[in-house]
């Protein structure tokens, strides 16, 4: 009989129930959209902030002590990182957080006129097939996103056309009167080489006076085969907190539990630590200009989204509460009748709660998917990528909808329990 009564309400009063379901769906969609966006905004903004370039720089241990201090005549005596170890960066614990990286080797070469010029070897769009089966295109093409290509194009490593090509900074190009397609001859300490200018770039910094070529091309000039002198790494990191700051100074000062927590969180300092473990004789340190600012902006954006989410959750909760109260109160007559024919308060409350609960389940489910849809709209139009479906959103929205609808029922049920059947039936 109970089930029959519930069915009766749901099907015969479907208009009213639809209204409740609709409001619950609205509230739930608002909640799930905002929660999804909020939980994903960190990752998304983090990706966006990658346009600022590398946030971690890896240098050989020996050169981290200022070489110039000891008036070393010859740079070649300085230690180098090994090119064959570069792949290891993608094997660390936080491998998925490493979005991009590029090695550099800088050679002081001479131009034909006798001027000295820095020739920098690097990756442009280096293709890597990783042991994990993953594939990655890494290099300065994405790591230096702020460079403007004034003419020509980026070097293309993958079709082989880049091997004798070079990209020239705009200041140097203007000084030497170079344009795309012209040749430039440079002499290193071991060999000399002639490059074809493929692109001219404006980096807005000292790179404007340099020549960028492929890694092996630059290495050959000075006989530095297999050696690199720095690596720029762009990693998705978690903003530093007090633990991360302490760990950055000395990881050994942490307790075992703290160390575990730190090691297993994507702090810039723990990623640096892991890179140091993977690559021999290197020092990896966060580029504070990027890492610190990233943290600040991430924190602020997340906090902002959290506050907006809280506000909209309050709004959604109030909307649901309100409508549930109103629509249950509307039925005072019917419930008075039930009491008149002998229903206990408990039975009446159970009936009302069950009806609202069933409606809430439907409304909540519809709302969740609608909200996820809204989140996708936001994700695609702002970041051009989908917002990930976080499993934790489901229980949060479910619990929220449940609590809010039940709270919405409280005033209504209190009123219903207070009803005297005679009054209701006599139209009071």
């Amino acid at each position, binding site marked *: 009989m109970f089930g029959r009564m519930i069915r009766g309400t749901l099907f015969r009063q479907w208009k009213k129930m639809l209204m409740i379901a609709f409001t619950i769906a609205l509230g739930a969609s608002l909640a799930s959209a905002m929660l999804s966006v909020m939980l994903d905004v960190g990752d998304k903004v983090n990706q966006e902030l990658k346009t600022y370039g590398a946030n971690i720089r890896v240098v050989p241990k020996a050169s981290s002590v200022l070489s110039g201090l000891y008036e070393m005549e010859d740079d070649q005596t300085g230690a180098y990182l090994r090119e064959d170890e570069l792949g290891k960066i993608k094997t660390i614990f936080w491998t998925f957080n490493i979005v991009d990286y590029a090695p550099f080797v800088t050679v002081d070469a001479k131009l034909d006129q006798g001027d000295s010029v820095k020739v920098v070897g690097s990756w442009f769009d280096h293709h890597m097939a990783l042991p994990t089966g993953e594939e990655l295109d890494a290099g300065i093409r994405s790591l230096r996103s702020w460079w403007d290509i004034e003419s020509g194009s980026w070097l293309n490593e993958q079709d082989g056309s880049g091997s004798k090509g070079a990209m020239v900074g705009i200041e140097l190009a203007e000084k030497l009167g170079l344009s795309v397609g012209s040749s430039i001859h440079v002499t290193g300490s071991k060999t000399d080489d002639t490059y074809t200018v493929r692109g001219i770039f404006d980096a807005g910094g000292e790179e404007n006076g340099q020549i960028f070529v492929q890694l092996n091309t630059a290495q050959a000039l000075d006989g530095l085969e297999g050696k690199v002198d720095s690596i720029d790494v762009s990693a998705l990191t978690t903003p530093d907190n007090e633990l991360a700051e302490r760990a950055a100074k000395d990881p050994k000062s942490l307790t075992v539990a703290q160390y575990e927590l730190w090691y297993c969180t994507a702090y810039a300092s723990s990623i640096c630590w892991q890179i140091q473990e993977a690559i021999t004789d290197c020092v990896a340190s966060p580029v504070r200009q990027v890492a610190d600012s990233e943290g600040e902006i991430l924190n602020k954006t997340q906090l*902002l989204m959290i506050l907006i989410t809280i506000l909209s959750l309050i709004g959604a909760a109030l909307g649901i509460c*309100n409508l549930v109260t109103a629509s249950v109160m509307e039925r005072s007559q019917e419930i008075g009748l039930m009491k008149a024919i002998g229903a206990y308060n408990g039975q009446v409350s159970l009936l009302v709660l069950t009806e609202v609960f069933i409606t809430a389940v439907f409304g909540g489910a519809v709302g969740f998917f609608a909200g996820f849809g809204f989140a996708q709209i936001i994700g695609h139009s702002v970041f051009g990528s989908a917002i990930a479906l976080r499993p934790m959103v489901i229980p949060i929205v479910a619990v929220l909808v449940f609590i809010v609808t039940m709270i919405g029922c409280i005033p209504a049920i209190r009123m219903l329990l207070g009803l005297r059947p005679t009054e209701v039936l006599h139209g009071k």
Partner: protein
Amino acid sequence: MKKRRMFFRMITASLMRRRSRMIVALLSIAIGATILSGLVSIYYDVPRQLGAEFRNYGANMILTGSDGGFTYAEFNIGKSVIPAADIVGAAPYRYENVRIREKPVVAAGTDPDEAKAASPYWLIDSGEWFRNSGELLMGAKVAESFRLKAGDKIEVSFTPEDQQEKAADNQAPEDNVREFTISGILKTGGTEEEYVYMNMDDLEALTGTADRIDVAELSVSAVSDKLKQYTADINSAVPEVHASLVKRVTASETTVLSKLQALVLLVTVVVLALTMICVATTMTAVVAERRKEIGLRKAIGASDSSIIKEFMGESMLLGLLGGIAGSVLGYVFAQQVSIRVFSSSISFRPLLVPITITVSIAVTGLSSLMPIRSATEVDPALVLKGE
């Protein structure tokens, strides 16, 4: 006249004596209005606030001498092109090769406060920022190679130009020597770690020459178009100075900031749309609850238009009250968000008050109109029979 008084008497009676129901309706309208005014204020203030956050990336404009260094006077003229309120920090730097323990080190003279403002990401690893004359901030790499720490005292020597020939002839030059205390160790992860920083006055005293700036770093809070305008203006105002933008910072800022702004805009739109629908359903429910009363009024002779007038009057009064409450609460909310997130206060936008109130009246009014109209179509006889 009398009729109007009765009209208001009825509306106020309905609002006052049905207090609990009305407060709930009012609350939802007020929350809707709060979200409206709060989010719109935040939306308008976010670019400014976030723009300030992005200044954490440091200088976005660099001034160099067109031909070597430039003077303080030239620097100040250049600076004056940009409104003072937009300048977050403007740090002049002068670089000189000095020696510590007979090893060459690059020393930079600057204004400590401005340097800090222009490069907020500089981290003092130990010790504190340099302030007074005789204090020196040492790059971490320099400190490491000398095994120096904060608090240590060192002598810094400089060979003036006229003595350099002697040095070249392997004679002992007469160096200028000053003693400094290391106030702190600087960590940036960049080349700054290879320098030592001191007050410009100290460097001038050490070198014996004054009024020369090699580079000035400016952190300017402005959008990229405006920054371009400023550089052009500076370049034409002071030919001795060449202003250029730090592309890495400005280009990236434009990209990221526009995304964040779009994010806040879309979130605002979605939240607003859903909230308005929520308010509308609430009003629908509030009116639907009173079908019986509408039937009664019709039975005792009310015309449809007078019923619509009364109920709309009531809804719009609710909308007005909700809108007023929402404007206040929205401002408070936006202010709280601003203080908590950006630790700065938000400017009050007077225009937002009438907009919030109008929108809230319009939404409540429109959303009540439909159910009221449908309620007036009800047969009073049926309603009164207790259907």
